[in-house]
């Protein structure tokens, strides 16, 4: 018989305001096995934990139930507390009477009754608990960073600087990501390339970093400390070891009509190309869909002009497998498609562009060589209208329900840069709210208004109508004046919502990392574990977790790196002891369990079994504790009930069911 202690937490008034904790103590004390029950203001506090430890010692408790917040919050805390007091940590059960009770019910009587039942279920379970001992698994001292933008580069550099091998996998031909496409950065207005390229070079030169561009993650298996990843290196059609990066091939390539991805489709590139001049590696790829050689078998000019003989039309995709201890996801973002927002005439006029396209227009390496001009006719614009919140803060399916966070600031930046360089250009910004929470951010926005004379109007744009004379008629609200405005503009720039890069969806499935309804990766805890995925060993870096600007991205990238380093620094990991275990006397050896095991953790051995005096060789399932992750699929597949899950045994769960239905 267990000797159980029950500890009911008030959580200040979080629990105590709706649950009569005294009553819970009183009722729990009557349950079988319970020899001690008490309540306290904050069980998780030092004093609360001291009470638990004292009771364990004094009452010689063999198991405890803490009625408090979610086990996802403090189970680990109370387990550690029990362990310090000499009790096996797996003899602790939590009754969640906060998130699942006091916070959702208003009626005290009802909530108290439910809390009592939840406590009862936990007591029934702990009566059947057995001490468990965690196992150990090894840690592969190598990290994988998925995505080679500023987030991935920063995470990789930090991990590599700590002395661990890092592989960066980037799906495009060069690292650099979105930041490489930006012209200037806020709120300092320094040049994006000037601060990014040194980082790219540093990553490329780092002896601990391997960069796999034009590559994608194909398959991921394993678990924290021991992931096995298949990476596909797409055929570049160029031998990177031979290529000198001279650029002759690109110059001579006759197929020059493909839209440049790097310049957001605003101009074209050759079929053999490096996305931009500072690309790393400076090795081109052949776009096989556009290449004349691949389409018709004729041409081959690039091969002829390549002095190094690097062009290899026969190159094939290559898949290699590598093991990693930690994975950092840094897949970044893209702007949403504007197909469903044609009231802004994005598809009807070349002079309506997104902000990211404006970055390319403003950039010296962009389609207009950095001259601000209309893309339709090359004319210098007299008036530019910026529209905020295009697709952000939308509750319908056209857009995104969240604030994209960076638009207010980059719009202020664009407005300021334009007014600075071209004082003759009038700039109007239509906004719903100007959101500038950040260091020097509001000051920056105010400078745009006060020093640069940018005209901010509160109100949304309803329609952009292209006019026969080539101008754009912008119809908008001025809410402060309660007017409808119609103004002519030469260009309209849309602050388009950002969304996670679509590649993150299949990746999350491979990683078994959870993802929210907007396809942002979910963090383990929104406040306390913001850079970790709930899936152990997966860390989040940059916009894949939520909208953020460059300094925030870099900060998070560093934080993710530190978490990864903390993992890689360990030689062994303690494993979850809640693993499956087969009862040898009951096992049929039928292999049903192995069929459903996602980890290949179950194997079969022929063993001499003594079954009530009958000795015979039997085929028996054996679970590898280092591989088993404790899902329990095998326990239900097992027809005889031989396979059980420690910590969540059949009898424990049934005891909970019984306690609830009593």
């Amino acid at each position: 018989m267990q000797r159980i202690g029950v500890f009911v937490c008030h959580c200040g008034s979080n629990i105590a305001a709706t649950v009569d904790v005294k009553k819970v103590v009183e009722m729990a004390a009557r349950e079988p096995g319970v020899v001690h029950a008490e309540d306290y203001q904050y069980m998780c506090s030092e004093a609360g934990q001291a009470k638990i430890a004292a009771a364990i010692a004094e009452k010689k408790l063999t198991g405890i139930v803490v009625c408090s917040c979610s086990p996802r919050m403090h189970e680990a805390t109370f387990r550690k507390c029990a362990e310090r007091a000499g009790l096996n940590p797996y003899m602790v059960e939590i009754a969640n009477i906060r998130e699942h009770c006091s916070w959702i019910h208003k009626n005290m009587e009802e909530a108290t009754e439910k809390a009592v039942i939840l406590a009862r279920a936990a007591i029934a379970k702990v009566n059947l608990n057995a001490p468990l001992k965690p196992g150990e698994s090894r840690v592969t001292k190598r990290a994988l960073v998925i995505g080679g933008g500023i987030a991935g580069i920063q995470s990789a550099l930090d991990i590599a600087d700590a002395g661990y091998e890092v592989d960066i996998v980037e799906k495009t031909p060069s690292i650099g990501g979105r930041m490489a496409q930006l012209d200037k950065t806020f709120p300092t207005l320094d040049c994006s390339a000037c601060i990014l390229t040194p980082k790219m070079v540093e990553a490329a030169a780092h002896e601990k970093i391997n960069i796999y561009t034009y590559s994608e993650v194909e398959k991921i298996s394993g678990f924290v400390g021991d992931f096995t990843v298949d990476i596909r290196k797409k055929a570049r059609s160029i031998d990177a070891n031979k290529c000198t990066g001279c650029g002759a091939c690109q110059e001579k390539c006759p197929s020059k009509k493909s839209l440049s991805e790097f310049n957001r489709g605003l101009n074209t590139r050759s079929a053999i190309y490096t996305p931009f001049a500072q690309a790393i590696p400076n090795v081109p790829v052949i776009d096989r869909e556009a290449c004349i050689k691949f389409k018709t078998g004729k041409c081959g000019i690039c091969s002829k002009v390549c002095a190094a003989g690097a062009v290899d039309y026969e190159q094939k995709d290559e898949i290699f497998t590598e093991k990693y201890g930690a994975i950092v996801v840094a897949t970044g973002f893209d702007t949403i498609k504007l197909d469903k927002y044609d009231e802004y005439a994005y598809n009807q006029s070349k002079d309506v562009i997104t902000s990211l396209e404006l970055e390319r227009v403003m950039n010296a390496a962009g389609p207009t060589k950095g001259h601000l001009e209309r893309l339709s006719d090359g004319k210098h614009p007299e008036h530019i209208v910026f529209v905020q919140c295009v697709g952000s803060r939308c509750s319908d399916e056209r857009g995104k329900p969240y604030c994209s966070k960076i638009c207010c600031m980059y719009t202020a930046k664009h407005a300021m840069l334009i007014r600075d360089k071209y004082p003759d250009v009038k700039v109007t910004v239509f906004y719903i709210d100007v959101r500038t929470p950040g260091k020097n951010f509001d000051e920056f926005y105010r400078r745009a208004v006060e020093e640069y004379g940018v005209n901010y109007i509160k109100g949304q744009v309803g329609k952009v109508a292209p006019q026969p004379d080539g101008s754009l008629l912008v119809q908008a609200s001025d809410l402060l004046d309660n007017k409808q405005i119609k103004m002519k503009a030469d260009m309209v720039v849309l602050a388009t919502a950002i969304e996670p890069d679509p590649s993150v969806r299949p990746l999350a499935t491979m990683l078994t990392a959870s993802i929210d309804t907007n396809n942002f990766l979910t963090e383990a805890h929104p406040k306390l574990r913001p850079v970790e995925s709930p899936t152990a060993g997966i860390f989040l870096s940059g916009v894949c977790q939520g909208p953020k600007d460059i300094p925030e991205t870099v900060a998070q990238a560093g934080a993710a790196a530190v978490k990864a380093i903390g993992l890689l620094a360990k030689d062994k990991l303690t494993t979850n002891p809640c693993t499956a275990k087969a009862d040898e006397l009951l096992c049929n050896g039928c292999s049903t369990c192995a069929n459903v095991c996602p980890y290949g953790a179950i194997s079969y051995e022929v063993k001499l079994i003594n079954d009530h005096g009958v000795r015979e060789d039997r085929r028996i399932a054996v679970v590898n504790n280092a591989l088993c992750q404790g899902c329990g699929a095998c326990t239900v597949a097992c027809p005889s009930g031989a396979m059980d899950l420690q910590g969540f045994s059949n009898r424990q769960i049934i005891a909970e069911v019984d306690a609830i239905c009593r």
Partner: protein
Amino acid sequence: MQELINRAKELLADGTVVRVLGWRKGDMDYNPEVAYFNSAEELDNFVYDGFCGANLSKYMIEASKLEGKTLVFLKPCDTYSFNQLLCEHRVDRDKAYIIGVGCRGKLDIEKVKAQGISGITAVSGTELDGPDSIKVSTIYGDFDVAYTDAMLERCHVCKGKEHKIYDELIGESKDTHDMDRMAAVAAIEAMSPTEKFAYFQAELSKCIRCNACRNVCPACSCRKCVFDSTKFDSQQKANVDSFEEKMFHIIRAFHVAGRCTDCGECSRVCPQGIPLHLFNRKFIKDIDELYGKYQAGETADQRAPLVNFTFGDAEPSIVNERGSK
């Protein structure tokens, strides 16, 4: 029948097998028993006729533990069970010498009795090569009964006359399939929830929990049944009907779902005449309709539907559309 005995004697004599698993005469013509034969002499009691419905596959679990090979006679439908057991590593292929025996459907004495015939003393003409009607002798005189009229329900919905696994074949099999296997299930599906509940309540209340169904079932072959172990706090042997009616048979059917070959032994042996196969067939029907046709025991290396999935499987809510109106 003599051919089987002769062949068995040969195999015993040349040492291919050390024992024979078959049927021997029972106290009446219509209840032969499953038996081991260890010598040529013992084989004199061997019988193979229309009443040898018993599926010998399950006995091969124990036979697989014995020294030497066992000769086992399997009817076409029994071979599915053998394959399924092989798939689950419960029988040892190397310990079995399988003679696939011909079958023209097996008989059910209850079907004879249901025709108003009582006081049965003997039944003849049930051999594989026998006539189209059997002769039933009773204390009131002799009666002729058409062979098919005395056949087990399962033979009317026979899976086919082909043996799925064997070492050699003796005897011709006949196609006896002349009914829709799922008709009875579909009829129940069409009832209202109240009718369904009443139907099963009435049938299952007859259960005396003798465990014959469990013991005969080739899929129900666990070393220890969950109903006898402490693992689920579900051990209960006392016959208290409210449990039997609602849980035991559902759990049993679920445990064999995807593994049941629909051999029909459960219903054949039930002393209370409960149509237990209707549970198993419901699962088979659902599996066929939701996850694609699947026949357990078709081969020995299939992946059973409950340890398998596709990404596009139906959601459980499909039951709301498919189930009772």
